[in-house]
């Protein structure tokens, strides 16, 4: 039940209701718990609510780490 997915906010209307693109489709997302969220942010959505705004810098850092891990393994193999 704690399954949650990352999605990118594509639109926020005047009432604060958001739309996000998730795997090619547009879903409604309640942004009441993440007032700092802006269009273009990636958020974690659970049960129709965004519960967290993702950090682009940290995401790049994670990617870099995994590319390094993969490269090190390929060299070692």
């Amino acid at each position, binding site marked *: *039940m*704690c399954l*949650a997915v990352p999605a990118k906010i594509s639109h926020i209307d005047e009432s604060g209701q958001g739309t996000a693109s998730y795997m090619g489709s547009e879903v409604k997302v*309640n942004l009441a718990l993440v007032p700092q969220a802006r269009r273009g942010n990636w958020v974690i959505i659970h*049960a129709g609510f965004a519960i*967290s705004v993702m*950090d682009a810098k940290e995401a790049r850092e994670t990617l870099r780490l995994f590319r390094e*891990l993969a490269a090190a393994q390929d060299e070692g*193999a």
Partner: protein
Amino acid sequence: MKELRNPAALRSLLSDIEEQSRKIGRTPRLMEVCGTHTMALFKSGLTPLLAEAGVEMVSGPGCPVCITPNAIHEAAIAIVTGTEGVTLATFGDMTRVPTRKGSLQTAVPARDSRMRIVYSPEEALNEARRDPARKVVFYGAGFETTIPAIAYTVRQAAAEGLRNYSVLPALWLVPPALRAILEAGEAAVDGFIYPGHVSAVIGAEPYEFVAREFGVPGAIAGFEPGDILLAIRSVLEQAVEGKPRVALEYSRAIGREGNPVARALMDEVLEPFDASWRGLGVIPASGLRFRKEFAAYDAGPRFGLKESGDDRDLAGCRCGEVLRGVIRPEGCRLFGKKCLPDSPLGPCMVSYEGACLIHFKYGGERRARS
């Protein structure tokens, strides 16, 4: 993030893990608290690879459908069978939990009443807005990940003066359950993989006591295979160094402070009480109930339900021990025999986060070998 599934990167992490576990000198036993982690481990095929790397993974209590005791499931059945003009809305898994009174799926609703599966509690709130003559009850089970969304609907209903909306709460807090497991000691946990999406709300601080008081390491993990391996590596490194802490290995999605807005909302609407969990019994301050100002939105008293009911598991079901990490699902003699996904005898075989269902669906290869 396909990089987090890159086989070479995963192999590299697995060999680090093997090296750390060798330094520990025995097979460390790590509890993945969250059922979504259990599923991710099995589906990605990591479970047997981790066993080869010398790590034993054990499932914990992180399945809200499973740890909700039968009495509350029976209360939900009583509402939809006993009152006319009710919509009982809930998450899909909740409808199939077997009790002595059948399940929500097999229950025959009262006249003009119905059961409705929703994805968000807001869908239930919207039905109450649309149809003022209908009594809409959201049967909400969840941890800190889900609780803010449920609290939101109640605060909203109160603000709009919606009298036909209510919630049957089954709201559970993860940290007190971890304390109960550590104090009981029977699961012999060497480290915790903390639930990433519960932590999105509560942050890292509420787990600090695990390291401080019990000396047990832990790491908050995301749900990609690479996320989980990073967290396992961190936990083992902490154990080798003898420096237990709460590591955050999911920083692209959450911060150590969690979500203060969500926590403030929970705190505004709900208050802790000593709740009874399936398998774990009564745990101090481990459940949430409505504060006095919002008590009118509690479906229990509104529908005249009794405080307590029959909390025993169905005969032979050992779901409670599975949730405490004391036995594996294969240790239940009904597993895969009398208890099957199509004819479950306990909630652990119902929920997609239930350890019995996950072991049955994805553990076939290992079962056949052992």
